[in-house]
């Protein structure tokens, strides 16, 4: 099956504060100030808009090219981290479809790898000094060693480790250890009082809490999601389960 050989990677990695006020340029400038990036407000705002325009037109093909452009037009002395922060903030505030540069679907496998590497390195660069780096690496293919998506995520994870020597990794393999779907024995766990739950319901809730905690702990989530007959595998869909846990609110880009 041709569809069985198709592999797609979904990388959920970047979370930049969304603009909250009417004056976008002021919010953008304020956000830059938190990174220690100062300068003429109009200049920075226009530069941010040009960043998006260039990505939209394909003048900059990816985040690396874009930050190269940004670096050439910010004052001397601007650090590499600040350059990436400027780029990420400009994407967040001005790009019509947010994070277009790394959400763009690429066709070739080489592009997938480059794309993932960008996301991983960018996330690491932006947040590397701000928090403990932790990668949640999830595979969901059922094809074992034949899996293309596993090879892709393994390469991306290696790149992440190389870029972040002190980082830690949690690995979850949904292909060999799938998350059980809710059934008659566990489905009501979220609707009954704690004292009335059966052991199966308790175990189900505990697993949900564990999954939520894994996602919350991760600075970067790397998700290997193959396409089987043009849809994600059922194992991958099990990842939606934590959202059915009361009180759990997770914002993923």
């Amino acid at each position: 099956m041709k569809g069985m050989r198709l592999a797609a990677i979904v990388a959920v990695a970047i979370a930049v504060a969304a603009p909250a006020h009417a004056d976008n340029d002021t919010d953008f400038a304020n956000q830059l100030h938190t990174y220690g990036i100062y300068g003429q407000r109009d200049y920075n705002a226009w530069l941010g808009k040009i960043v998006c325009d260039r990505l939209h037109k394909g003048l900059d093909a990816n985040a690396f090219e874009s930050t190269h452009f940004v670096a050439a037009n910010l004052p001397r002395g601007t650090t590499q981290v600040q350059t990436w922060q400027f780029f990420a903030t400009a994407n967040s505030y001005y790009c019509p479809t947010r994070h277009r540069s790394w959400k763009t679907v690429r066709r070739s496998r080489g592009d997938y790898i480059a794309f993932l590497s960008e996301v991983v390195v960018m996330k690491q660069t932006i947040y590397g000094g701000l928090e403990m780096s932790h990668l949640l690496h999830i595979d969901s293919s059922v094809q074992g060693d034949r899996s293309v998506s596993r090879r892709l995520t393994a390469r991306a994870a290696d790149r992440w480790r190389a870029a972040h020597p002190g980082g830690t990794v949690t690995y979850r393999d949904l292909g060999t250890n799938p998350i059980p779907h809710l059934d008659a024995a566990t489905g009501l766990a979220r609707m009954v009082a704690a004292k009335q739950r059966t052991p199966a319901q308790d175990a189900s809730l505990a697993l949900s809490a564990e999954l939520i905690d894994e996602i919350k702990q991760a600075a970067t989530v790397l998700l290997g999601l193959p396409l089987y007959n043009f849809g994600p595998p059922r194992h991958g869909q099990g990842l939606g389960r934590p959202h059915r846990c009361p009180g759990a609110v997770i914002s993923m880009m």
Partner: protein
Amino acid sequence: MVFAGSAAADATDDYPIPHRMMTCTAEQILAAARDFTPIYYQRYIIDKHNKPPEVQQAAIDSAHYFYSLSPQDRRAYSEQMATNFADPMTKGWPNWAKIFFNNKGVAAKETDNCANYPPDDTSVWDG
């Protein structure tokens, strides 16, 4: 006693256009402006797009003509740029050549980098 130097223009002078403008094509200059002085470039392109199509085309043709000249001829022609209102080009768009010579800082960035771009990529005129 020191006397003021001669006012005779040659290819090493910076006025009325920086001597560094004696290299590269118009397209290379614009491509470098796009990447290294992007706001100046965008203002120029917006200004251009606000002109009638025939004026825009005339600006492109004038720039091609200018960069086809020898350094001495460029120097002589630049004396007329944006100053001679009998010239329909100047009348239609006085600032048509601004990005090419009007600002030494911009010209420096353009000429530092222009050699790295293709000489005939006309898409740079569209912004």
